């Protein structure tokens, strides 16, 4: 383990607005798993894009196995046996696993026909070498996200990769799938492959990597052997200050029932039943967390409560008022706030300014609207106040929202939704894709609302978040609540099993 597979020396890359990489030194030993961590915008992806030939560094040198190389484009990188598994998969859904893997490098029969048999054998060999089986003839659109990721891994190995770059590979996986992925990566390491693992999640760094490089604001701020460090140290290096991990929740007495959902049913966009007979209650001062693999009816459930999707049957009560199938506007007027799961598609208008986004939903009411015209004095004051209170950066109300970072966009949404004392807050995936600092901020805001006695419905794919924030946890699977748990008496394992529909396993677990 003393030979370098990769050395990047003194890499500098400047974009007009930012110095993305500032004299970065990054080196990886042959056969190690190296974690690359940092907040959003720290320069990790830029560095990896330079390695993969997507960008050219302004200055600096790259050595592969000790030889200086010039990576002008991704083809050069592939020839140098560098492979990249992107966060968003680059697969063709109607094609089969094998067809996707060989795409662009098809084995030929007589130089004309694709030798599919040979390809299938190769795919099976590769998957078995990592200790799993895959159906080479299955279509991508019919297999799960976890399996799709394996296809991506086989694809880069098929192209002969010795150095694998994994860009936030666990973001889309369930806890069980994460474990399986780690096994695969460890077996690749045994085969002598070198793995660079980009992540936000510090427990993964600890569980998987040999060494870790931490970046902040375009610079490398620390290189550690994983066994010699801990999460707190890595986090404080990432953020540049101490981070509070333990969320302090004050004990609180729940008040009246704020939201009551009775036997709710709703269809998804394809016309299939996505929410099946869901009933639950949330009291004032309570956080009810919904855990579940995405696509099990959470999206539809939130949309029905917020009036964005009709309920096909069942009732929704806010206090004693029946608000079933109210319009989104009426529901807002009844003071239900909603942090939507898909920030870019639902939550913001990226071509509107910060000030304009901050009035979305109340734009037609006093004081923002007087008669026919908008009242810009009120709108601007409102914007300046919220920018200050929620520390939205940059602090110019006239910036278009698309120019803000993901974390600041989310702050705009949170600021807007919490304004005006909502009775119920629905927070769906509130910290997805955010960096450590922003996550801390959003969590604090949610807890503040709880302490003020608001009812909160939290939906998250991040089990740690669910476990640390919720007062009760409802596990949702295929549109039904399969169990309601006390966060103090459960763990990620149990929830993870319930999330994947293994109710029987749960019983086994309990009898153990």
């Amino acid at each position, binding site marked *: 383990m003393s030979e370098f597979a990769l050395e990047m020396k003194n890499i500098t890359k400047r*974009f*007009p*607005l*930012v110095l*993305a990489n500032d004299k970065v030194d990054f080196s990886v030993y042959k056969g190690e798993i190296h974690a690359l961590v940092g907040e959003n*915008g720290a320069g990790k*992806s*830029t560095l990896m*894009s330079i390695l993969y030939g997507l960008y050219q560094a302004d200055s600096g040198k790259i050595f592969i196995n000790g030889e200086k190389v010039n990576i002008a484009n991704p083809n050069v990188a592939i020839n140098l046996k560098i492979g990249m598994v992107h966060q968003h998969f680059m697969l063709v859904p109607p094609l089969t696993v094998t067809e996707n893997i060989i795409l662009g490098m098809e084995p030929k029969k007589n130089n004309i026909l694709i030798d599919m048999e040979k390809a299938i054998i190769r795919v099976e060999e590769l998957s078995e070498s990592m200790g799993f089986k895959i159906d080479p003839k299955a279509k991508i659109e019919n297999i799960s996200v976890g399996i799709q990721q394996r296809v991506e891994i086989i694809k880069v190995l098929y192209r002969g990769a010795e150095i694998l770059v994994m860009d936030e590979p666990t973001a889309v996986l369930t806890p069980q799938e994460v474990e399986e992925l780690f096994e695969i990566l460890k077996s690749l390491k045994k085969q002598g492959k070198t793995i660079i693992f980009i992540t936000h999640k510090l427990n993964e760094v600890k569980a998987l990597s040999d060494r870790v490089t931490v970046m902040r604001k375009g610079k490398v701020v620390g290189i550690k052997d994983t066994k010699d460090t801990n999460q707190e140290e890595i986090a404080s290096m990432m953020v540049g200050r101490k981070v509070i991990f333990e969320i302090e929740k004050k004990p609180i007495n729940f008040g009246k029932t704020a939201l009551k959902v009775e036997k709710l049913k709703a269809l998804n966009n394809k016309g299939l039943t996505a929410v099946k007979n869901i009933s639950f209650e949330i009291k004032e001062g309570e956080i009810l967390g919904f855990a579940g693999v995405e696509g099990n009816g959470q999206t539809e459930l939130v949309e029905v409560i*917020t009036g*964005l999707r009709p309920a096909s049957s069942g009732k929704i009560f806010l206090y004693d008022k029946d608000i079933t199938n109210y*319009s*989104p*506007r*009426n*529901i*807002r*007027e009844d003071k239900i706030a*909603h942090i*939507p799961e898909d920030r870019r*598609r*639902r*939550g*913001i*208008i*990226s*071509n*509107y300014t910060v000030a*304009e986004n901050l009035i*979305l*939903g109340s*734009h*037609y009411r006093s004081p923002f*609207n007087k008669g*026919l*015209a*908008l009242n810009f004095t009120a709108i601007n004051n409102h914007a300046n106040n919220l920018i200050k209170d929620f520390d939205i950066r940059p602090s110019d109300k006239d910036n278009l929202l698309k*120019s803000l970072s993901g974390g600041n966009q989310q702050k705009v949404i949170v600021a807007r939704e919490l304004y005006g004392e909502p009775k119920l807050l629905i927070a769906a995936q509130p910290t997805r894709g955010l960096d450590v600092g922003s996550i801390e901020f959003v969590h604090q805001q949610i807890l503040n609302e709880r302490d003020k006695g608001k009812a909160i419905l939290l939906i998250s794919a991040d089990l740690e978040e669910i476990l640390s924030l919720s007062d009760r946890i409802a596990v949702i699977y295929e549109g039904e609540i399969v169990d309601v748990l006390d966060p103090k008496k459960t763990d990620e394992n149990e929830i993870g099993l319930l999330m994947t529909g293994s109710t029987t396993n749960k019983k086994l677990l309990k009898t153990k």
Partner: protein
Amino acid sequence: MKSIKKFDYYVLLEKITPLIAVICGLLVGAIVIILIGENPVFVYKTLFSYAIGNRDGWGNVLFRATPLIFTGLAVAFAFRCGLFNIGGEGQVYIGSFLAAWVGFTFTNFPAFILIPLCILAAACGGALWAAVPGILKAKMGVHEVIITIMMNWIAASLSFYLALVYKAPATEAMIAAGVKQMIPHTKEIAQAARLPRLYTILNSINIDFPAHNQVNVSFFIAIGVAILAYYILWKTNLGYEIRAVGYNPLAAEYGGISVAKNIVLAMIISGAFAGLVGTNEVMGYKYRWRQEILSGLGFNGIAVALLGKNHPLGVVLAAILFGILNYGGAIVNIYTKGRIPRELIMVLQAVIVIFVVISDEVVKRLIRQRRKVV
């Protein structure tokens, strides 16, 4: 702070792409002129000096620009709501016809009632015609492009039929010669329905302006409508909602904005703008409805909106540029005894529009590349 300055520079670049496109368009035009065997410097000098070198030229330019301001605003307004209204053509026919109908039907009304009534009729006709695709889009999700195209054909046939129903009577000369009225145009509108030509106003305040010049009060209506469009879009609650729907209908819906309602409203307003072409062509120029004077205005509005970047001020400037090219082109045609065909102007306009699209895309990519902070 330095970096912010650089950023602004690109925003500026994005804003002036039409100017770059116009220059590129004129350069391509110059090549075409050389290929025809003429001198581009002479041609452009003639074109611009006659079009904007004197008052008569300006009058002619503004007269030609007026209908394009209306149709350009129509396209731009709908576009702000994410709608591609290519039914300007039909909305122009129907709006203008309704204005003419009011004008030749209520002939005993005084001007102060009849003129506003005719203007209202023009707007309502266009609005009505645009409401149909708007409602179909909002309620059934039918694409507005298909419906507006179909509505154009219906409008063309319907208005032509109505023109024959209300056909102008034969003139005395025709009666004397024993022939029937063959021109498919309507009766003349009442004197009280006519908009004054600008020369009457200018001459009354001792400004020399030729009486044959057709520029009329409709130009000021067009400017008023441009200001109104700006006010609605950027200063009112309705405009906030319309633009929100245009940018991101999902977020608009989430914010309690009715997407369907705003689509219908945007189409109605857009159609009303297009219908107001009748104020220039019917109330200010021919004093009757005739299809040939209206044809093509709706489609040219698309080019004007594109060149004007869907902004009211841009639309006005783009319409004036098209007015200059149209009028100047006609003059050049006469001066070169037909060696430079009028069609060259159409080529020029088309090339400019193509360059707008290209330079827009180029600048967008430049900005994206520069901004890329991963």
